[in-house]
């Protein structure tokens, strides 16, 4: 359909402005990350890679990175182990209360993280699971499983159940069908779900704030606490690193199931 040049240009300008708004913090953080001053100032006072060096030299960040990586990896693995079978049951089996079960599996998405964080603190503190790897992993598991269930469910819905039936008619038992037909078909979804779970866990801040401590302190908490005391370019540099991590994840997810299907709310 054709539209006048004024409308077209106006529309383009509006979209550009909106995209700029959306990307503003990332752009600014990127610019600031090369500054030479000891606190954030605009415009930047100079150009240096020193902030990046500081990030990698900071023992808190190093420790946080390790905690976050270990936690996210373990959480992802467990979330897949819990979420994939559930998604299978939800898409491939007929049983009474299926809708309710699905709602239950997705419902943690509707509970505020701050409440979940407090709840986990109250539950974990006496055990004591706070400030431990397992506490952190369990805490993250609750919020990542729904995402895995959702992406894998989407992948399963997209995979033709007829192919599974065909395999059965060709003599494949249920487990063989899963291994030889279902699994290859949902691999992109599994992959995307895993990446998203990893990133969610890696970036999780609020819940971690409650259940982590100084022995096991994940990176975002370390960053938040750092930001509460200092705002130097190294924190911008760290943010840029986190952004890059996300970009890598986005690319990987897009290669897998596709962003759109993976992130559907």
């Amino acid at each position, binding site marked *: 359909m054709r539209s006048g040049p004024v409308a077209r240009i106006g529309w383009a300008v509006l979209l550009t402005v909106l995209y700029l708004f959306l990307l503003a913090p990332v752009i600014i953080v990127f610019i600031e990350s090369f500054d030479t001053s000891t606190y954030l100032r605009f415009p930047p006072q100079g150009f240096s890679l020193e902030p990046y060096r500081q990030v990698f030299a900071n023992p808190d960040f190093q420790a946080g990175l390790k905690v976050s990586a270990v936690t996210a990896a373990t959480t992802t693995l467990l979330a897949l182990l819990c979420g994939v079978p559930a998604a299978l049951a939800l898409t491939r089996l007929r049983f009474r209360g299926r809708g309710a079960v699905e709602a239950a599996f997705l419902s943690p998405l509707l509970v505020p993280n701050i409440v979940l964080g407090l709840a986990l603190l109250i539950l974990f503190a006496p055990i004591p699971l706070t400030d431990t790897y397992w506490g952190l992993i369990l805490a993250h598991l609750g919020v990542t499983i729904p995402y895995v269930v959702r992406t894998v469910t989407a992948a399963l819905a997209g995979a033709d159940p*007829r192919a599974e*039936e065909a*395999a059965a*008619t060709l*003599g494949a038992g249920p487990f063989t*069908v899963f291994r*030889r037909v279902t699994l290859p078909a949902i691999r992109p979804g599994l992959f995307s779900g895993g990446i998203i779970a990893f990133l969610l866990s890696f970036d999780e801040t609020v819940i971690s704030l409650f259940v982590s401590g100084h022995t096991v302190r994940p990176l975002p908490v370390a960053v938040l606490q750092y930001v509460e005391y200092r705002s130097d370019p190294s924190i911008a540099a760290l943010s840029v690193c986190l952004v890059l991590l996300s970009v890598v994840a986005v690319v990987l997810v897009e290669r897998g199931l596709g962003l759109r299907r993976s992130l559907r709310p």
Partner: protein
Amino acid sequence: MADQPAAPARAGYLRLAGLTKVFPGEGGPQGAAVAGIDLEVAHGELLAVLGPSGCGKSTTLRMIAGLIEPSAGTVEVGGRDITRLPVHRRDMGVVFQSYALFPHLDVFRNVAFGLEMRKTAKSEVRTRVARALDLVRLGHLGDRRVSQLSGGQQQRVALARALVIEPAVLLLDEPLSNLDAQLRGAMRDEIRRIHDETGITTVFVTHDQREALSMADRVAVMNAGRVEQLGTPEEVYERPSGRFTAEFVGRANLLPGTVTATHGAGGGAGAEVAIPGLGTVRATGDAVTPEGRATVMLRPHRITLRAAGKADAGPRGTVLSAGYSGEVIGYRVRAAHDGPELEVEHPAGAGTAFGPGAEVLIGWDDAAPRLVADDGDPA
């Protein structure tokens, strides 16, 4: 064609007895999706299951394959009850409407899948897959990705995959419905050829009259979960048992009238029926109500129209509309002034064509009129 010398007298190899499926939460106006089907398919026979959308064809086929658990009834193959056998232990080749090829495997591996499940030796797998691919004329495409194949080729891979395991029974669910007209004709011949070469007992589901009639040894016409009629293509087309079959298998003028005389019995039965606007029509068949009423079926292409001279005798009519379609001209004709409206098909090109309003003489092939039980269930 004619009357089926092909249908062997052997007892049914595949037998369905009282096969029924009620889906949970169903049982509304229609009741069961499949409502007690009894059917025997002879060894080596090709049976078509023909019926409108939603009549339960796929459900029946899937119960045979073991993909749906029947609510009641049994499935037997070669005298063995397999009703409770899980899918992967039945020996059935299934070709799905959507083909359901494994997208992550190439053509060769798709076809080999069933043999691998049977732990067939590598070398034997190779030769048998090659043979199956040759059978469907895809010998050269073994290492193609499934996504690189055309619809017709995919269809043939699905067929090869089902055939290579040499199943006891081959089941096809509307295998041609995704193909375009051209390809469909070719695949029709192909499936029939393969069936004749392999001799595998085959059940195949379709809602396309043409497909069923041209391919099958026998046709089971289904409607609302039941088998309406089971017979050779010609039986089903020429001697439909009821209104549903008459109208679903080809087009039909169904003309109610009053029986004035009957004669003969069984296959040779016939009657004379007075039809308003058409006079008395001699028809074969014995479907006469106790009250002496009957419905006569006249296929549109068995009716002839001639330009009506003033003096000509015989039933007359007025052309309401004429539609040219190359091969034939389709007319709608009103018999007499207030008689029934008839559909008529004339070969086009040769002879005269009539425009709307033309007065015509209506005639028909003597063998054409056929009595049909009016089961009051129009298609």
